[in-house]
């Protein structure tokens, strides 16, 4: 029996492939295999002999079966190793290209601004870009003869020859949205109004279309001091650094008192840094909403008061992200879009950062 064992174990060890293993299996433990035949002989043995030979044969059978299985795995592993060795690839080849999209800075900054003001309870209001001159001017305390009308470089739309209404305008600011929102919702109200605005001006620093966000807060006792706090909170959150503001007296027909607002900045080697230094940069116009504007929007100025402000979205985008040229915002140069654009998944949030 030991002969059988050593014979088959040796044969298994030498088996070259899976077919040889199968042949050996049949030869040794198959129905008519050598070991199976021996097992059949057990019946002819005496009980004493059988008690010795039986377990020994079974053990031999198990051992040979294990050896066959182990050899089978070893052969398969060897074959796999051989295959994998042949499957070498040059992994330095470039990957398949995936197109990468981008979000325009104006959209990104609009979302950033919305996120900050949403936290202070402002909702986002929108309105028509072609406006009646009443909503764009008269309701904002800019009557027909007011010099501000000429100074705003307004675009007018065409009027039919028989049409004697005042010409419509491309809104010169998003203030008409304030009026429409106050008309629709009354007071108290807190809104920001982002969007495209238009002025007939085109040079190094002006484009005939640009983007603005205005803010409006009307309540019983809102003061200019609240405005200052709101703006400082806004700029600090937006620029990610504590930003001081400086209010300077100014004039806008729709606010009274009015203030130009400067933000703290420094110029170092031609690089502007907001929120440090002792320089000031004019960025925003603001004031307490003029009683006549509230009246025009059907809000009683004896009961309600509040502030309004307006700031250029493109302007603050340029300041925050170091974008040099306003005109390039609207040129859709792929190089610019990819360089200054934002990842689709970089959604601005207050908890994740702006």
């Amino acid at each position, binding site marked *: 029996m030991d002969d059988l064992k050593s014979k088959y174990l040796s044969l298994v060890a030498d088996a070259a492939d899976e077919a040889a293993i199968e042949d050996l299996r049949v030869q040794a433990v198959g129905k008519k295999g050598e070991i199976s035949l021996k097992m059949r002989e057990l019946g002819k043995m005496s009980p004493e002999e059988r008690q010795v030979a039986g377990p020994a044969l079974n053990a031999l059978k198990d051992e040979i079966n294990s050896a066959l299985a182990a050899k089978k795995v070893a052969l398969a592993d060897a074959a796999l190793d051989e295959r994998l060795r042949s499957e070498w690839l040059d992994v330095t*080849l*470039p990957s*398949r*290209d995936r*197109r990468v*999209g*981008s*979000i*325009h800075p104006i959209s990104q900054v609009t979302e950033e601004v*919305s996120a900050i003001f*949403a936290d202070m*309870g402002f*909702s*986002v209001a*929108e309105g*028509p*870009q*072609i406006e*009646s001159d009443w*909503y764009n001017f008269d309701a904002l305390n800019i009557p027909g*003869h*007011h*010099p*501000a009308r*000429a*100074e705003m470089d307004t*675009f007018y*739309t*065409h*009027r039919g020859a028989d049409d004697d209404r005042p010409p*419509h305008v*491309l809104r010169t600011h998003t203030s008409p949205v304030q009026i429409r929102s106050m008309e629709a919702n009354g007071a*108290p109200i807190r809104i920001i109004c982002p969007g*495209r605005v*238009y002025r007939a001006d085109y040079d190094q620093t002006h484009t*005939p279309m640009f*983007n603005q966000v205005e803010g409006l807060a009307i309540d019983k*006792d809102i*003061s*200019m*001091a*609240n405005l200052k*706090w*709101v703006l400082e909170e806004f700029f600090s959150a937006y620029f990610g650094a504590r930003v001081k503001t400086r209010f*300077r*007296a100014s*004039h806008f027909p729709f606010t*009274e*008192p*009015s203030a*130009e607002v400067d933000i703290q900045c420094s110029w170092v080697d031609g690089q502007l840094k907001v929120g440090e230094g002792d320089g000031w940069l004019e960025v925003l116009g603001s004031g307490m909403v003029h009683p006549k504007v509230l009246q025009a929007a059907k809000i009683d100025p004896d009961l309600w*008061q509040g502030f309004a402000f307006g700031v250029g979205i493109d302007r603050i985008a340029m300041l925050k992200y170091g974008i040099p040229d306003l005109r390039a915002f*609207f*040129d*859709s*140069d*792929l190089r610019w*879009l990819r360089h200054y654009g934002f990842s*689709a*998944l970089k959604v601005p949030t207050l908890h994740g950062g702006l």
Partner: protein
Amino acid sequence: MKFTLSWLKHHLETDATLDQIADALTDLGLEVEGIEDPAAKLRDFTIAKVTHAEKHPDADKLKVCKVQSNEGETQIVCGAPNARAGITVVLAKPGTYIPGLDITIKVGNIRGVDSFGMMASEKELELSDEHNGIIELPSGEVGETFADWLAANDPSKVDPVIEIAITPNRPDALGVRGIARDLAARGLGTLKPSEVDPVAASFKADLNVSIDDDTLDGCPVFYGRLIKGVKNGPSPEWLQQQLRAIGLRPISFLVDVTNWFTYDLNRPLHVFDADEVAGNLRVHRAAGGEVITALDDKDYTLQSGQMVISDDTGVESIAGIMGGAATGCTEETVNVFVESAYWDPVQIAYAGRALKINSDARYRFERGVDPAFTPEGLEHAVRMIVDIAGGEASEVIQAGSVPDTARAYKLDAKRVISLVGMDIPESTQRQTLTALGFKLEGNMASVPSWRPDVQGEADLVEEVARIASLTKLQGVPLPRMTAGVPKPILTDGQLRQQAARRTAATLGYNECVTYTFIDREAATLFGGGDYATMLENPISSEMSHMRPALLPGLLRAAARNQARGFMDMALFEVGAAFHGGEPGQQHNLISGVLIGQTAPKDVHGTARPVDLFDAKADAEAILSAIGAPAKVQILRGASDWWHPGRHGKICLGPKKVMAVFGELHPKVLSTMGIKGPAVGFTIWVDEIPTPKNKSATRPALAATDLQAVDRDFAFVVDADVAALTLANAAAGADKALIADVRVFDEFIGGALGDGKKSLAVTVRLQPKDKTLKDADIEAVSAKIIEKVTKATGGVLRG
């Protein structure tokens, strides 16, 4: 508005420095736009004395001078003919920048002799064109700075020029005196009195002035005096210098005097050559069509209703805007009529705009000059004319009367804290208003006649806060409207635009923001370009019409990128397009274009030309992201800028179009300058129905452990049968059992013959309560074949 520091000091007694004044002006709302300080460039020049001068050993025209400066004696080689011992000179030491030469002086060696600096001429210091010799000063101590010496001895040479921006509400600050008043109220000095000693009348004028009744609302008052025997000529030097400093050209005294009072007291005046005036003057409205040659030598045709001043022969002046050339003063003028009138701002604004005249007079009258000052302004001018040019003045001629602008508002001291948030004592508030010219009686503040902008109590608050300085304002937190975590604020539409935008970017599109106005050709191609959406005053023909769609802007952008060598691109925009010219006739769109290859060429063979199914997939992905229903119809018949056979509308019924995708029409592309084909999509965001169920809860997931079975079918159908029709028919065979039908193969022509195609679908059967048996599968298969055949006429491919 420009003025010089010395001009300001003519009205303001002050020790404040230029910087303090500039900071205060900006803070007061009179924003300083620029300061030209001639002294700034002279700071490094000091006064020195030449103690010794002898001829240069090697040059006839050069002298070697010993010069005493505050740093001791130094040697300078000088070529000026007047360089000699004993004179007081202006010294530039080595390292000093010479503005007139644009060089910085270094230690030099001139023909073997060292020279330590330079003695300057007036031209080298940009003080004048004088360069025949170096400056010889009549006084001055060694070491004194030249700028200080000039300030003390020849101040006009170092008079800083300040330019400020004036907001439309502050006509009073269009005169130097008004600016001085603001500064005095701020505490930067005291306002000097400005009283005039009227010239006594010597005769009664033989000229009369009348205002037509229908013109009194535009010209309530008109004052004038005749001056006989004046001698016109160049203005005195100080007057010329002040005008030049602010950029005005001195012409002759009689002209300069009106310009000077315009800037000094915001009192525009007009001086007629009385000998050219025929008969009497009449203020009236133009009938329309009259032509006048104005002082700018241009002819203007007047419109009916515009105010004019005429003599017996016709119109001589465009009232409040510009005088006429015929009666203008010349060097020979000896008899003048000086006009000081008040013109209504609104009427002047409209007339000035219609005539397109931008004059100093119009600029001021349309903002509002002080009506009460009309007679006094006249006396100021007459006094100066008689004092300088001589002559005798007539009695005052007056027509109309000074309009009553008196009004008073209640000063509520608490309003400053409630409106602005600054705590300013009432006494300070009253003091401020008084300094600005308000008269306080009890708590009523009477508005000075030069402040037409003050129209209510809020204006009093503004004045008080402005003078106190808004820089002192401290922020106060704005309380939340409701306590706790703020509620979401974006509307469904806003959320959708945001989701659409970010989905498009995720799909590899670059977001563009293109101009809302486009050229007429592009607008017309995309269904716009009509009068309703046309601009009356476009900035260029490239920007003349409001866009009817986003695609033209994107295609123009694509063409620009192709021109830069970028041939493969995916661009999109989210924004408004315009279907009419009335407010609100705009709708929100999302459009994308794909051009070129899907990828750069690579070893994997990834790249292939983009096609409409790319655009369709992207449109579907965006629709899905913004919550559009999944079950849609795909219809043809979109606008004709699409390829007629290669586009589809994604619809909820024939009239509810949510999106269009497809290939752009080749003719449109070639007009837009695009090389090669382009595909794209447009989504009408507002057309997508908002889900009615706002609950966050999802329905329970109905997933079964029973195995799904896939079966493939191929049908031969007519070539024009839509795949979606076939798939929908198959799906309808057993709505409970069929989970999905997907077209996976299309084969056209070949052995099938012309006009035929094969469409293969895989149908997924998902049993819900028991495992499918062969008989079940065969039953539903038969039903699928029957339904498809009925709907499409197709037969199962053998």
